[in-house]
């Protein structure tokens, strides 16, 4: 695959990924568009710019790793991995269909190039810390990136892991909070508010950055700072917009877990042209 750090090229990739997300979920007639669209710039930057990885050798031991702890955003991960060359682009439209490698939530049994099976919220950060610790034992300088949701941060295990990561100085792990402010039942602030997010991570001992998660330059700079930070893990609190890029999905709790209709898919693709 051809990597790039050019923000214009990354923005083009982001647009392609957003189109895939809308089309895949539309075809599946179920899925989670809002939290997939909010994560696009972060995943695009990781896979095309930041991470050391090789789609031709998905199990290369010294690769960097990415875990989508908020597994319901699987479409963004599938679209990115397919465009990188890990898996077929033309099968993206089989999302959620029987026998598809693109299961409803990431499933390593169907897509071995995935780093982890996720979907039960709260677990990915612990997996990342285990991987990071294992890689350190091997003497590798590989890094592990894990994306969690803001709603997911209501899970107690996240904070067990946060405590562990800082105390044990697992500095090859970088956690990204996709802070899109919406979960299934509504706005996070109306369900069980997780604010103040950055203060919590700082209090738990993580090097914590707050960025606009759709500003590619800011995303790149944050990952560079994370990689340069030694002795403590980094948490990037990415302020994002749920449903980003599709006007009628933006900040709309309905599109946490509801697929667009065929008419809505058409409208969305026009906006993403």
């Amino acid at each position, binding site marked *: 695959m051809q990597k790039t750090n050019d923000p214009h090229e990354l923005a083009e990739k982001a647009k392609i990924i957003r189109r895939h997300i809308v089309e895949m979920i539309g075809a599946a007639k179920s899925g989670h568009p809002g939290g997939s669209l909010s994560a696009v710039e972060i995943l695009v930057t990781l896979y095309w710019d930041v991470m050391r990885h090789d789609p031709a050798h998905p199990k290369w*031991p010294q690769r960097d790793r990415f875990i989508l702890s908020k597994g319901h955003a699987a479409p963004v991960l599938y679209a990115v991995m397919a465009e990188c060359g890990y898996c077929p682009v033309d099968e993206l439209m089989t999302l959620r269909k029987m026998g598809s490698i693109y299961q409803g939530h990431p*499933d*390593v*049994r169907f897509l071995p190039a995935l*780093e*982890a*099976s*996720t*979907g*039960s919220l*709260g*677990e990915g950060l*612990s*997996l*990342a*810390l*285990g*991987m*990071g*610790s*294992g*890689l350190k*034992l*091997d003497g590798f300088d590989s890094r592990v990136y894990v994306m969690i949701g803001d709603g997911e941060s209501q899970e*107690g*295990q996240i904070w*067990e*892991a946060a*405590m*562990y990561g800082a*105390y*044990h100085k697992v500095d090859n792990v970088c956690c990204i909070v996709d802070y899109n402010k919406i979960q299934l039942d509504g706005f996070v602030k109306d369900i069980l508010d997780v604010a103040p997010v950055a203060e919590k991570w700082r209090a738990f001992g993580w090097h914590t950055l707050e960025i606009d998660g759709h500003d590619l330059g800011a995303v790149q700079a944050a990952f560079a700072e994370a990689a340069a930070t030694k002795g403590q893990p980094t948490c990037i609190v990415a302020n994002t917009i749920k449903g980003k890029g599709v006007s009628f999905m933006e900040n709309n709790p309905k599109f946490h877990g509801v697929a667009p209709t065929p008419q809505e898919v058409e409208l969305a693709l026009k906006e993403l042209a």
Partner: protein
Amino acid sequence: MALTTNYELKLGAATREAFGRALVEVARENPNVVGCDADLSKSTMMTYFAKEFPTRFFECGIAEANMVALGAGLAMTGKIPFVSSFSCFVMNKGFEQLRTTVAYPRVNVKVVGTHSGISIGEDGPSQMSIEDLALACALPGFTVISPADEVATRATVRWAAEHFGGVFIRCGRAKVPVIYAADAKIEIGKANLLLPGRDVTLVAHGLMVAECLRAAAALDAEGISARVLDVHTLKPLDEEILAAAARETGALVVAEEHLVDSGLGARVAQALARRAPAPVEFIGLETYAESGTPEGVPAKYGLTSQNVVAAARRAMARKAS
């Protein structure tokens, strides 16, 4: 064939102690073996490993959910994690993580639950584990082992380090009688025939193996020939040896330090219903126990050789004439 017919049942090490020693042994041989514990290493006896291999030991604090998934992450980089705590905590608090990060994606994690059953004694029911085998057996692909003594525990730990896949090893707090000679053959997935017998079969795992041997001696004095099987591996179950026992002795008793409805007894009944239906009686726990001595609590809650003897008589009385 029976290994011996003369069991002295001398008190040996606790199976948790045997686990701690065996883990050090396998860790010396295999640099990929790592350990995770949740602030109980001095009780689970992972402390021996932690002292000898500090960089390979991951102290997780009192946070079992994180510990189990952290172990899964270590396994995903090729390590062989032994994850240990009291059985009730690692299985109950870590169960969801065992399901989603270990069993379902088929990750190579070994879980060691110590202080299992009610023979921990004084600490009482909040620390006792009487559901752990039901939970472990519920996980597809898991191998579930409840060794009876130090020899079987060592063999189990050595096997687990070699085997790729999820494993649950159940250990106890109290010292237990030695069943096996140091060089006895313990094959995971194959039950051990401890005593031959014609009239009834006594089936057990863990602590109740010794009680069944005592029961067999009492039955022998009455002229009843009891076969004794140590079914240390609950999953996969050695259905052949159980079906043969059902056909050849015609009646069975399953005795275990676990909830009676969801442990080995349920698995044996299911296997025999399929392969060789026979009357079976069950000795186990109906509900939560209480504080007391490690000997007194199991006795009060019915885990005795006398109850096994009585159950054997009931099972034999139900044989088709």
